[in-house]
């Protein structure tokens, strides 16, 4: 159950896993995620489903090694089993055909952006994708993104690939030169906050996919709660995607730090 059939290293800290999960592969839609656990005392962590293969009955996950739990997953090899995996969770992306889509993917956020780019392209939209990473080694899925984008713009902090600059620089250039009907931005929370501020200036409807803390993933505990348009929503069942201009990002960023002390302690162990 949940056997890893393929493992691939995409960068120093980022790995791609293809996992046996026939039921999830069949039910999943772009934007959905799974919650998984490694080991009897493992933590439940959410990961967006990047791709699936119905014939083979597999799903693809991409994970960055940032802590104890992701580290355990990254240490697994093909042939190992993931202790527990449940999905597909979360509301699927609303795929439609507004015309021109600006997709922004920052760092490991490029992974969850990929299935959405693919779906919007297949729906007949013009898709312009801006990818950003600290440097070219950390830039993932460029080839795959090019397959489903009319244009791909690369931004890196050090200029080692594409242009030197922030993702919002690249995005603003696109917005200034052509009409963008909708924007999707996925990446570190702070990046999504600034992407939202940018698109709000130009009144472009924007969706982001939030990466809050989660425990059960089925709406049971409220750990993932965010304030959207003045109301409390649960990222795991009402999201993970929300209207970017309605999200209280400052509150969300603060809540992401809730376990910082505990995580630091765990890392030291």
């Amino acid at each position, binding site marked *: 159950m949940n056997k890893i059939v393929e493992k691939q290293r995409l960068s120093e800290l980022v790995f791609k896993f293809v996992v046996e999960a026939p*039921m*999830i592969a*069949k*039910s999943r839609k772009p934007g959905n995620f799974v919650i998984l*656990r490694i*080991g009897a*005392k*493992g*933590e*439940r962590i959410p990961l967006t489903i990047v791709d699936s293969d119905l014939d083979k009955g597999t799903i693809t996950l991409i994970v960055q090694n940032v802590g*104890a*739990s992701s580290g*355990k997953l990254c240490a697994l090899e093909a042939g190992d089993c993931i*202790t*527990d*995996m*449940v*999905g*597909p*969770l979360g509301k699927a992306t609303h795929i439609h055909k507004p015309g021109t889509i600006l997709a922004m993917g920052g760092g490991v956020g490029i992974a969850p952006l990929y299935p959405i780019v693919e779906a919007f392209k297949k729906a007949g939209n013009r898709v312009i994708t801006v990818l950003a990473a600290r440097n070219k080694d950390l830039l993932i899925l460029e080839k795959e993104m090019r397959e489903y984008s009319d244009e791909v713009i690369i931004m890196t902090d050090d200029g080692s690939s594409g242009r030197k600059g922030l993702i919002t620089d690249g995005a603003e250039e696109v917005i200034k030169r052509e009409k963008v009907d909708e924007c999707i931005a996925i990446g570190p929370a702070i990046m999504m906050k600034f992407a939202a501020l940018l698109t709000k200036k130009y009144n472009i409807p924007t969706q982001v996919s939030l990466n809050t803390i989660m*425990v*059960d993933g*089925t*709406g*049971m*505990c*409220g*750990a993932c*709660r965010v*304030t959207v348009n003045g109301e*409390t929503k649960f990222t795991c*069942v009402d999201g993970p995607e929300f209207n970017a201009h309605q999200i209280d990002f400052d*509150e969300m960023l*603060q*809540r992401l*730090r*809730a*376990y910082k002390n*505990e*995580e630091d302690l*765990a890392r030291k162990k």
Partner: protein
Amino acid sequence: MTDYSEILKQERNAAWRAELRNAVPNKDRINIERVHMTEAEPHERIKSQTCEVNKGLSPDQARREASRCMDCVNPTCIEGCPVSINIPKFVKYIEAGHFLDAAATLKEFSALPAVCGRVCPQEKQCEAKCFYTQKIKKDPVAIGYLERFAADYERESGKIQVPKVEKRNGVKVAAIGSGPASLSFAGDMIKFGYDVTVFEALHEIGGVLKYGIPEFRLPNSVVDVELENLRQMGVNFEKNFVVGRTASFEDLKELGYKAFFIGSGAGLPNFMNIPGENLNGVMSSNEYLTRVNLMYANQSDSDTPVLRGKCVAVVGGGNTAMDAVRTSKRLGAERSIIIYRRSRDEMPARLEEIKHAEEEGIEFMNLANPIEYLPNAEGRVAKVRLQRMKLGEPDASGRRKPVSIDGDVVEIDIDLAIVAIGVSPNPLIPACLAGLKMSKWGTIEVNEQTMQSSIPEVFAGGDIVRGGATVILAMGDGRRAAASMHDYLKNRYNL
């Protein structure tokens, strides 16, 4: 339909029962003091999440306590029991020393007697209706302790009676959720000969029994034995399966499932929606208890963290609030405080839990209600502002309504707040079933007798129907649903 009271009368007239009654005069029975449950010492027990507080009765204690029961002609205790357990019969078996027979009697009515003996609010149910309470104003027979004794005895003896299971009839049914409602549903359906699969969204089976109720009240080992029994009888359990998401109801029908029991519970946390409730360090009781009970976050080898507080405030007065506040004590809090807007007497928690909490050093701030949480510089909760309350006129539930004392607001320093003000039905499953009639509060509407929903092949019970209720009621629902689903399927498939 055989009359239950006729059966009770006949059984009472059995020779062994009459002999027992005659062996000791009632006036002697009445003079026996109610048994005191041996409890783990408070200072020691707060060091451990898994040390069960109640230690159980010894066989001698159990027989002596059982002898207090006068085997009334009209056993009013049964009226107090939501599933009408044949209380005099099992109690008299205990008195006679036939402990396994007592356990078997319990299992005719209740799927999980070891659980109910521990968590039922007996003081509002069977023991409230006992002759001792009603007529002579003395402590009732400790029916709950006796139920636990019989169930534990059977479990520990290794001689657990696996009930007779009918020949398989080839019809597949599904239970959604693995809490008490589904477990008792599954237990009956497997006996009727159905192919039963219980689908559970989490990675552990048991629902609230595992993630909600802490081990110092209900050890996991007790629940696991019951689950193993069900497996022995042939019930299948599928973990990590969210019906409606992992596979739809249509998918399951294609796989051959003919009927469904929804026991997905009230797993949606209620918040007060007051300012500051989204600060770090303010969380729902569901989150807190799930981290500790399900994810073992209190243990150093667990990957899941839990926030620990030096001064923890738990808002609420029910069993969940008691569980959360006592857990916080075990996690090292210097002060663990219950904040409840009504008085001590009106707290809905089991009296035993309140007593145990007091012994463990839990502080009770009654007639106080949070109106705002205030942060420190890092965005972590640092204070709570409380409105002092007084009791006004009774409301519809018969309890006096808490009324704010205007201007009387106090602030206390805390670093962790747990909101335990109740739960609502989790909307995830019902949202996946078009045409399922729901109430405006998110509960599934069912026929109260048959537990059948607006969709004929879908039945439901437990908290998803009742809002938040008790384990015993959930179990009663599961059994009723099994009986009527059996009728429904018998007719449809000519079984």
